[in-house]
């Protein structure tokens, strides 16, 4: 290679090396390969060279052009990368800064328990029935074989509302059982319903709230026996508490609207509060075979149909399952409590996902 080309090569590579930014680099590129660049000038002069010299000089120039083009492009990419890095470095932020969060809210534990009950009983073919909170005396008591003088009524501290002209006595339902009555009047057997809802009794202390929730269940069909009642209740309790071997005990009892009647206990440890373990029993629900008089009051022939009903306290079951110590806290709407015991809206009670 002739000296001048060698010098050009050397000078250009040096200039590229010293070009600190894209502007300097561009000056080198234009000064070498641009219209009036040094290499472009040499190429242009090639035509004036002697023919025998032209071939070898032309080949040398072409080689030099390839080398310098590559060197310029390479250096350009390097400088571009450096420039980008410098810019990105200058854009660095404190990623620990807070962002506006719209955290998830929560579903109240009473709603959650109702959802779980609906899921479990739903799998057994029950549907959800509802009724009004303000009831008549007849629906809440008389139809349920609880006439006004009945001793059982003294257990119910009933809230009364003013009676409107010519209408029946109005009260806040003391139980969800009146919805049994409404269901039997509206629908012919077979019937399978559960009725979760608000109930009211004039009682207020550490273990009683003037408003609380019950879940009623009713099955009416041909050939229903107390065995079905036991099966249904045991299967529910074991699914709800997620304990396939939960001990369940049945004790004869009395309710005006069922016969035979029974109270249902589950095994637990009184001291630790652990459900399923221990040697103690804890009452969780009342139940029985629907009283023939109640069926007849609703126009269902007790000679042909039998049924069973049960009722349970939703708060009570919620407290047991979740270890909630205080009944009153359910209604205080203390944000800290709501968050602590609330359920995620993204995990609804679905049997296939597990309760």
């Amino acid at each position, binding site marked *: 290679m002739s000296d001048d080309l060698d010098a050009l090569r050397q000078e250009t590579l040096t200039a590229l090396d010293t070009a600190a930014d894209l502007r300097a680099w561009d000056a080198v590129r234009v000064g070498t390969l641009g219209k009036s660049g040094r290499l472009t000038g040499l190429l242009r002069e090639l035509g004036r060279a002697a023919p025998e010299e032209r071939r070898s000089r032309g080949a040398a120039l072409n080689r030099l052009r390839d080398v310098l083009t590559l060197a310029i492009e390479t250096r350009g990419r390097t400088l571009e990368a450096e420039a980008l890095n410098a810019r990105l470095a200058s854009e660095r932020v404190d990623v620990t800064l807070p962002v506006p969060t719209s955290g998830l809210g*929560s579903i109240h534990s009473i709603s959650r328990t109702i959802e779980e009950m609906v899921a479990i009983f739903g799998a057994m073919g029950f549907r959800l029935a509802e009724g009004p909170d303000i009831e008549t005396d*007849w629906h809440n008591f008389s139809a349920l074989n609880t006439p006004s003088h009945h001793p059982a009524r003294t257990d119910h501290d009933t809230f009364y509302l003013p009676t409107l002209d010519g209408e029946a006595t109005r009260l806040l339902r003391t139980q969800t059982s009146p919805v049994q009555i409404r269901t039997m009047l509206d629908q012919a057997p077979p019937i399978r319903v559960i009725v979760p809802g608000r109930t009211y009794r004039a009682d207020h202390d550490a273990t009683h709230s003037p408003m609380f929730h019950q879940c009623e269940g009713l099955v009416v069909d041909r050939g229903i026996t107390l065995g079905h009642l036991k099966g249904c209740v045991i299967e529910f309790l074991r699914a709800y508490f997620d304990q396939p071997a939960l001990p369940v005990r049945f004790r004869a009892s009395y309710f005006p609207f069922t016969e035979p009647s029974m109270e249902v206990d589950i095994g637990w440890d009184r001291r630790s509060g652990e459900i399923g373990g221990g040697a103690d029993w804890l009452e969780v629900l009342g139940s029985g075979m629907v009283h023939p008089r109640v069926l007849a009051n609703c126009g269902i022939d007790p000679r042909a149909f039998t049924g069973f009903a049960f009722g349970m306290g939703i708060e009570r079951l919620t407290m047991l399952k979740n270890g909630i110590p205080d009944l009153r806290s359910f209604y205080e709407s203390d944000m800290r409590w709501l968050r602590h015991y609330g359920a995620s809206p993204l995990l609804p009670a679905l049997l296939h996902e597990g309760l």
Partner: protein
Amino acid sequence: MKFTLSWLRDHLDTEATQAEILTALNRIGLEVEGVTDRGAALAPFRTARIVAADQHPNADRLRVCRVDIGRNTGEGGIGPEGDDLVQVVCGAPNARAGLSVIFAPPGSVIPATGTTLKVGSIRGVESQGMLCSLRELGLGEEHDGIAELPDNTTPGQSYANFAGLDDPVIEIAITPNRGDALAVRGVARDLAAAGLGRLRPWLAETVEGTFASPITWRIEFPEACPYVLGRTVRGLRNRPSPAWLRERLLAIGLRPISALVDITNFFTFDLGRPLHVFDAGRLAGRELVICRGGGETLRALDGRDYIADPEDCVIADDAGVQSFAGIMGGEATGVSDATTSVFIECALFDPVRVALSGRRHAISSDARQRFERGVDPALPVAALEAATRMIVELCGGEASEVVVAGEPPPWQREARLRFERIAGLGGLEVTPDAAIASLEALGFAVRARDEAGVLLDVPSWRNDIAVPSVLDAAPGLDPARLLGAEVVSPIEAECDLIEEVLRLRGLDAVPPVTLPPIAAVPLASLTPRQARTAAARRLLATRGLAECVGFSFISRDAAEHFGAIPDSLRLLNPIAADLDQLRSTPLASLVLAARRNAARGADALGLFEIGPGFRETGQTLIAAGLRTGNAPRRPGASGEAASLWDAKADAMALLDGLGMPMDALGVTADAPAHYHPGRSGTLRQGPRLALAHFGDLHPGVLQSLGLDGPAAGFELFLDTVPDPKRRRRAAPDLPSFQPLTRDFAFLVGSDVTAEAVLRAARGAERTLISRVSLFDVYEGEKVPHGQKSLAIEVVLQPRERSLTEAEIEAVCAKIVAAVGKATGGALRG
């Protein structure tokens, strides 16, 4: 109902242990509420006698006692084999030879201190136990030294047994149907029928009357009292009851008063047969009349005054009302220590009247509890004899002949059991013989039996079985569905019998059976509306709100801020003044909840409740939400106050989530008075249907309820939101041409709503305009006074081909014209 084990054993001959008895009680429906066994803690303590008491060699105040602890301690191991003397070091000043004492062997836990006794050495002398004071046993406060037992006490007895303290007190809950079990004898009968022994026979020995009773009965109110017996006992002396009677009453929580009173209490619990004794010397006239009250005041034995009204059944002498029949006697004619002559009352009172009177006057008594459940109608004659005998035995005196008024009411009833129904209803296979045996043990008598069933006489004490049906059919029930009592009564009676057969075996014996499935895959449990409510709950929770459950009633003062407070929705008997009015909306509960949270320092929060609101027209389901306070501050954001925009966004997201077509939604600037009048609105479908209110809450309401602002809320009426149309969806509109966007700024009057501009623009060319949105509102010096600039973005969606400039111009002109026509607005220059 309380009784002691020994009292039970008076009626029940049984080998069963206490634990077996308790288990059986629970099984047969006599729920055990508690057992108090004072004897259990005293089990190790024995009677003993000090044989010799010598001075301790190393301590002046101690004595070394040789103590005879008896041969049959049952424990063994105390002292050498065959030796019944042990050595005890004792510091009590009264420890002396010959004294009968209470001995605690090593290993005993001293009740008063909880310490466990060990064999030890006291000042170098071995002590093999302890001599106890009553205080150490937790039985008293005396501490003058060790307890001194009577001189002739045999050593080696259980002290609890010796002192009568080993008789556990059992408390059971009696269901309202089981009046017969409010008697120790009734409980014993049930246990015997359940296989726990034999009911001991009980027969009242007659006491011959020696004179005609100077006091007689007259019934003027036979509906309340069909039958009454009485008898005078004269020449008696009222005195304290003997120890056995006092201890029984004390054990079940009754205060012994005097023999005459204690005897009536005894029979109330022993036989479930309330009695009353009048001091005959304090009765005026020769006749007691059972009649309606007439407004007289009676001071009852509880020391309170009651006014007897005509619905009350009372017992009156010539001086006036002396007793509330079947509930409580009067103070004036009650017995005292000075009583020498009594008139015993033994009557049958109507359960319903007793229940209603007792409830009306709020008197609870053991007598009322039994009469309102029904006493044994066949028992009065025998009970009166038994009571007379006990009075004569304990108080002396002589008895008159019995006086009677009225007739024993017919109580005989029958019930038929078809054997197949035991399994058919009860789910348990029981042989006919076994079922009949159970019923006979309860007192039923077989009248006739065939292959299919058995006809039984019901025992007099079972007021709950085979009671004639009193139907109360639904008002307006289709006559075709109406059933007569003659149809229902036999079924009821049969259920009664099946319940008895099952109860005695325990319901745990019934094998559980899974309900047959209705469908292989269960159908939906929820109606579409119910499912929507569940979805609404989840949706609001995902928006960061926490669900609350508030009481349906709030204070009338608070309720007043949220609409009408009709008297028809005010509780007649509220439990507290702040819980007396049914709320019109759950939003009211949320505001109160926010105030409580704010008082704890949590003033920025989001709450919601899905619950009932009560109106005179009925109950509606409302989803209400409330946001309060300022969002948390952070760099670049100063912490915006909760506002109507949050509430509107919540309400609209909820409507969208419920499947409400958002195009059909309109907003009007009106809302109930609990919202800020200028910063609230109503979301509607069409002009009429209000679906939701939203807005800043009225500052006056917040101030009255003690909540510092800001606070914004919404109420969405879940019952009003139309059900989503259940039709097949049309294919989606997916044009393949690129949409284009044009911006417009209109100058409109200040009172023109954005909604009006948007609606006009949207309607200008429906086929091409796919979306119109507002992106800026400007009011200020750059626009004329009384006007504002609304900037909107319009998206045009070509469908068949790209639009030409001319077509685009044409659409833009239509938009400008439409907005101008609808609002008077013009393009901003």
